[in-house]
């Protein structure tokens, strides 16, 4: 029991060692793969970093271009603002000019109105003047008439004086005659007196007329003065009119000039408006473009950000990978260290096992041999004197000691397999199997066995170990078909891409597939010893050898319908 345990431990340790070696290889391969991937990632990262750099450069260029654009926009904005201001100023000036033009128009109108008024007044004055002139003329005429009348009166007066004188004479004569006529004189005096009165009245009237004349003269003079004044005023008015006309003309010219200027200004304003619109349009376009650029910039910034994010992510992923790699490296180193340690431990354990198996083989076999030997001697020397039961018991001791010897031998074979290095070479499987089959057939001469050996591909492996596999499997097939009248054992192979699968098919007892997993275990048996003797080590040995070769072994069977054992070997 202890022995079995030990062997089992041994097997486990060897399995673990093999697993560790495989795990180590796998790890090495993974490391290699990871190193490759890390290298690829490093390259990808560098590329990304380079792209990022390029993008960063472009972003920087764009940022500069954007800044320039922003600056240009600003400048344009400023210029637009200036233009707007200039425009406003112009508009204001235009407005002012319009106002002034309006004022001038109004002033012009006023002037025109004043001119008109003045014209009217001048006309009125002219009419008044003409009237005055006419009145003056009339007055002159009247004064001339008056002068004539005066002159007439004067003449009449002279005539009257003459007559008065004549009358005086006539009077004297008359006085005389008066005297004479005395009567008549009185009468005449009265007539005289009357005449005198009449004269007086006439003188009074002449004086009045003189006064009136004088008045008329004064009036005439006044009128002349006034006419002169009127003439002067007229002249002045004329002058003023002329001045006003000049001024009006000047104003008209100024107005025209203003109108021209206004026109020019309007033109310019229109031009400016157009220019302004154009500028506005350009500004708009530029703003659009700036907006587009801002959007593009934002997009770029976003893309940059995304790329940076991605780069950061990649970086972090890379770092993580690196870390993972480092970890793996560490782990690997640790594992390697562990493997080294384990290997050392295993080597030590193996050495221990070696000495152990030596001990087992040496020290266990010796007493066993002696048990067997002494029982044999007992039977030989005293068997005749002992009864049947004693002989039966002795036989049992002998057979069990023998079986234990076989077990120890198998165990040692199994253990040796684990320690022995495989020497791989090309194995002519076909001839090997043919030879083995005929040997086994000879050993079982009393049995009816038919071997069907198909063409078998050569294998690569340890000759002795593979031979052991074939021996065990063919022996098994023969053993488990011993209850069949005619054992038919078919051996063949199938070539796959990377491996060759060999099979041994028998028509023997088979086994229950439920226990298939137990088949290859140490000391595992699916049959009783009475039915089929065995130690349960043969298939464990097969499993160990095939595993060591990197192949696998499996079986298919049905109870009473035979079994097929397959094993694969890498090409």
């Amino acid at each position: 029991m202890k022995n079995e345990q030990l062997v089992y431990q041994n097997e486990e340790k060897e399995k673990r060692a093999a697993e560790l070696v495989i795990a180590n290889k796998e790890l090495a391969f993974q490391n290699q793969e990871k190193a490759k991937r890390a290298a690829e990632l490093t390259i990808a990262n560098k590329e990304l970093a380079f792209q990022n750099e390029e993008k960063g450069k472009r972003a920087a260029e764009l940022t500069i271009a954007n800044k320039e654009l922003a600056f240009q926009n600003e400048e344009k904005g400023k210029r637009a603002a200036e233009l707007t201001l200039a425009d406003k100023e112009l508009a204001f000036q235009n407005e002012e000019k319009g106002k002034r033009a309006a004022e001038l128009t109004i002033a012009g109108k006023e002037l025109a109105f004043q001119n008109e008024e003045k014209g009217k007044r001048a006309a009125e004055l002219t009419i008044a003047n003409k009237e005055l002139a006419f009145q003056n003329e009339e007055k002159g005429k009247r004064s001339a008439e008056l002068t004539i009348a005066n002159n007439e009166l004067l003449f009449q007066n002279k005539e009257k004086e003459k007559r008065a004188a004549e009358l005086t004479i006539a009077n004297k004569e008359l006085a005389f005659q008066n005297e004479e006529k005395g009567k008549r004189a009185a009468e005449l005096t009265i007539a005289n007196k009357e005449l005198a009165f009449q004269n007086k009245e006439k003188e009074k009237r002449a004086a009045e007329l003189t006064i009136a004349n004088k008045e008329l003269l004064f009036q005439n003079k006044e009128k002349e003065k006034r006419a002169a004044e009127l003439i002067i005023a007229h002249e002045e008015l004329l002058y003023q009119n002329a001045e006003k006309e000049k001024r009006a003309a000047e104003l008209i010219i100024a107005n025209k000039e203003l109108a021209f200027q206004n026109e020019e200004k309007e033109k310019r304003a229109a031009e400016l408006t157009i220019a302004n619109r154009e500028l506005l349009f350009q500004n708009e376009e530029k703003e659009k473009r700036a907006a587009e650029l801002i959007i593009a910039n934002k997009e770029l910034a976003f893309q940059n950000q995304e790329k940076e994010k991605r780069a950061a992510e990649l970086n972090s992923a890379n770092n993580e990978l690196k870390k993972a790699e480092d970890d793996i490296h560490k782990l690997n180193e640790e594992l390697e260290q562990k493997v080294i340690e384990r290997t050392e431990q295993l080597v030590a354990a193996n050495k221990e096992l070696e000495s152990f198996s030596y001990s087992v083989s040496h020290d266990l076999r010796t007493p066993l041999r002696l048990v067997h030997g002494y029982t044999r001697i007992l039977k030989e020397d005293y068997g005749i004197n002992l009864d049947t039961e004693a002989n039966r018991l002795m036989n049992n001791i002998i057979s069990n000691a023998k079986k234990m010897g076989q077990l120890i031998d198998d165990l040692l074979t199994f253990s040796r397999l684990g320690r022995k290095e495989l020497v791989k070479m090309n194995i002519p499987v076909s001839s090997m199997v043919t030879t083995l089959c005929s040997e086994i057939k000879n050993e079982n001469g009393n049995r009816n066995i038919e071997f069907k050996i198909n063409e078998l591909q050569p294998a690569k492996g340890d000759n002795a170990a593979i031979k052991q596999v074939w021996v065990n499997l063919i022996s098994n097939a023969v053993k488990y078909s011993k209850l069949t009248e005619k054992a038919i054992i078919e051996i063949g192979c199938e070539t796959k891409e990377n491996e060759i699968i060999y099979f041994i098919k028998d028509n023997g007892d088979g086994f229950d597939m439920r226990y298939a997993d137990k088949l290859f275990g140490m000391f595992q048996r699916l049959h009783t010893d009475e039915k089929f003797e065995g130690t349960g080590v043969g298939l464990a040995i097969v499993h160990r050898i095939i595993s060591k070769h990197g192949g696998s072994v499996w079986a298919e069977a049905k109870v009473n319908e035979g079994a097929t054992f397959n094993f694969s070997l890498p090409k």
Partner: protein
Amino acid sequence: MKQENEILVAESTETELLLVTDNDNDILLVEDNDGDAEMTIRALKKHNLANHLLHLKDGAQALDFLFAEGGYSGRQVENTPKIILLDLKMPKVNGKEVLKRIKSDPRTRKIPVVILSSSKEDPDIEQCYDLGANGYVVKPVEFDLFHKVVSELGLFWMIVNQPPQ
């Protein structure tokens, strides 16, 4: 029987000539296990090969005997056994060391030495051949086989094999 042999050896100095002639069949069995020794001797006896057999229980004794040292100082070294059956695993001086001494001394070098081991797993098997072992026999567990092996071994070395001289 052991006694008999030991006495025989002890007397060897005086009865040298007799011993030399008697020692034509001499077998030196170096075996620490009495049982094994008994089995071996029994097997040899069956074929009358154990008449002049000396059984020594360890390597030190074997060396003393072979090189006439210690308790065997009166012995003639040249008076060699015909065959030495040497167990490997022994206390004090093991079989390998004994073999080394035998094969490195010109006086004893020619004695055939057959290693009797309990196991084919012995790690020293190759070394034994390197050191000059003339044979390596694994003692079978099964008595009949063991018997057969030892008998054949004895017959071969004692009768079939032609030693130098």
